[in-house]
């Protein structure tokens, strides 16, 4: 499933770019992230507890960063597997200055398999977009101090 959208970060482009790749920030802002450990350059192992209203599940996964073109773009790959299924998100993030901040335009796709895919396709897109929004909101909140 394709996912695209944008988020205006109130920081200059260089800062936005580095915030988005800061593993500590990622760990704090990824919804449900309980642990993030570097296992190789640009690859982090992750433990995630997704909790969304009634839905909850534990995931083991990893985050990788690829195709870096600082401070303009990079690719973020998030994978997780758990008892309720697996998910894989792969998105290209493009950064450009706008209104004293940085516009982050993301474009990618999300795959979901296993039981999670059974409850209703209708929830996947909505939920994925909300998770992305939560991530950015939290990131801004923390970065602003």
């Amino acid at each position, binding site marked *: *499933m394709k996912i695209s959208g944008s988020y205006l970060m109130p920081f200059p482009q260089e800062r936005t770019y580095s915030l988005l790749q800061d593993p500590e920030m990622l760990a704090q802002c990824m919804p449900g992230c309980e642990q993030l450990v570097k296992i190789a350059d640009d690859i982090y192992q992750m433990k995630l507890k997704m909790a969304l209203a009634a839905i909850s599940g534990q995931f083991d996964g990893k985050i990788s960063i690829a195709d870096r073109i600082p401070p303009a773009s990079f690719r973020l790959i998030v994978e997780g*597997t758990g*008892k309720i*299924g*697996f998910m894989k998100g792969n998105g290209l993030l493009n950064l450009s200055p706008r209104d004293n901040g940085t516009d982050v335009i993301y474009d990618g796709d999300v*795959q*979901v*398999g*296993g*039981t999670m*895919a*059974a*409850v*209703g*396709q*209708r929830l996947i897109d909505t939920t994925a977009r909300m998770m992305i929004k939560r991530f950015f909101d939290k990131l801004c909140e923390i970065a602003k101090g």
Partner: protein
Amino acid sequence: MATTIAKPESLIGKRIKRKEDPRLITGTATYTDDIQLPGMHHASILRSPYGAARIRGIDISKAVQHPGVVAVFTGADTKDVGPVPCGASLPGLRVPHHYILAIDRTYFAGHPVAVVVATDRYVARDAVDLIEVDWEPLAAVADPEKAIAPGAPAVHPEWPDNTAFTFHQENGEVDKVFAEAEVVVKQRITSQRLIPSPMEPRGVVADYKSGDKTMTIYSSSQIPHLMRNLVAQMLGIADNRLRVVAPEVGGGFGCKLNVYAEEALMGFISMRTGKPVKWIESRRENFLTTIHGRGHVDYFEIAARKDGTILGMKLKLIQDLGAYHQLLTPAIPTLSVLMMPGIYDFKNIRADIVGAFTNCVPTDAYRGAGRPEATHGIERMVDMLAAELKMDPAEIRLKNFVPNEAFPYATATGLTYDSGNYAEPLKKALGIVDYRKLRADQAKARAEGRLMGIGISTYGEICAMGPSPATPAGGWESASVRIEPSGKVTVMTGIKPQGQGEETTFAQIAADELGLSIDDITVLHGDTMVVQYGIGTFGSRATAIGGTALYLALQDLKAKIKKFGGMLLNSEDVSFGGGECVCNKSGKTVALSQIAGASYRAMKLPPNTDPGLVATNFWEPPNFTFPFGAHIAVTEVDRDTGAVQITRYVAVDDCGKIINPMIVTGQVHGGVVQGMGQALFEHGIYDENAQLISGEFMDYTIPKATMVPWIETDHTVTPSPVNPLGVKGVGEAGTIGASPAIVNSVVDALSPLGVKHLDMPLSPESIWKVLQGGRA
């Protein structure tokens, strides 16, 4: 003194309430999940979440230790069980070894990987979560056209072209007629993947008795005898020690015309654990692992003269097979080729099938099996030809039908159509809708800016599968009839109904022939230890073949009854009717109950006659039967939303002689609604990673009561000369007729916008896009 015997009214052709219903409406019928055996365990299966993946390792240790778990098995344990069988053969067919549990690789999402056996179904389910699999996801392919294109991921690494077989059939002078044709119309037409969705999912209970090395398997099946043969082979046990019972079966529609991994898997477990074991498919598993239907991409070309005379047709058919061959998987598209000329009189055809492996669950027989795809194709092509030639779609059909005097009619694909009067149902349907007025209404609607459509489909089908040489496992049936000492009658048949009501129609045949009340007849089926060998219920064959066998057995029995009757009446000139034998000279009578009693008591026997009133006879059909009909759908498309409303639906079917019109009409209703499901709603969608994303009733729309219209039905009756009952079969007719009628209707509605073709399902959004000018 001679008494007047009132000949009871014939039950054939009568609306008789079903004998099977009292148990079904009171909740006392026994389906597979209702079976409880002492000491029975429960199984729960771990399945692949990936379309394709390598299994690097499986750790079952936690699951094994979980309290209540009896055993956990993986592919390593079951690898010596015989493969899930493919019963179809085609030249050069590539048949992957279909292990009952995956060994080191999984080929579709839902592929079984391990099984937990526990004392309770809740515990079994809990323990499945404790199995740890080290997966390596692999690239997968779900689209059959992409699968056969160069560079696609190989479903089976040994066959990188993903081509399981190719098949060619040709007749006449195809190139010549296409070269000379005044008009050629081409169209790519798809028949999407469909999920059969019987309301009862599959289920298996296996019970092995080690003391006498016998096994009983209860399974929700359309083919208990074939299942017995095949599962016995898979498990390496003698077929006379395996009993298969198909109890009450909650719908099949073809998906229970199969042998799946789970029958052998439960058998294996019961042999290993020494206890009975039950596995009941969840709906999610049903979507993921029970066969799907259709899955065609068809490229049609039709050649004609300007006057509308059809000259020939070409078809390139790509069949999405899925990852394996189930029982009949590769044979299904060949049925489409057989039916590709429909009921039209032309002799030049060319068909090429490519069977494509994909990382999806296998396709196989689903209501109509191959014929709906063919009918949809020809009926769309004829409509497109009519549009191209600005001819009326009814007129072009009437012009091209096989004429009545041509029967028996040899088709371009090698069949012989038994009997037909193709114009009759169409004319009747046109009359019912008042076609001329309807077209005038349509003109008025169009002038008002409304999008009203009228769609016609006329169809033929191959039923009563089939003569034995034309079928993989034999095409005959037999029937045994036993008149018990009381005069009550037990009929045993090898067919296995799943809602079609043969307990009633067969009882009607028996009651009629014996002059008894229908309440005197009991029909047994579905238990290989109780009833004699049979092939099963599919391909609209039960009544035409099983019913004929019954009719023949009854004739034998009647001869024997007359012998006993003659003996008791001391007469050589007796006739049998109305449940008694009459001496034609004296008028004296003896009731069947007395005859039956005497035949078993055997104080005296007629010469060369065994005791008892038992007869068995067989019917090997000389040909298929070919029912036909005409359906008309009137639709209106909502300009604002693209939603399609069916405002009228008329089905006129000819299934030969009708034994029970209530049941026939019920079959048509149900069939039409399944065809509507395909036309408007149903779509088994795999994404590009071969995940089934319409894998539950939350996402896969089978029609609900609010979504379907009132269906007006009528019949014409053209008896089949193939069998003495004159019946043809009706189980699949509605489904075959409906989808082209609806699509033709909606295309007709949208034709003022230049629309020539739409693929199914006709979702409101797909039509809205057309309305936006994004032409289909």
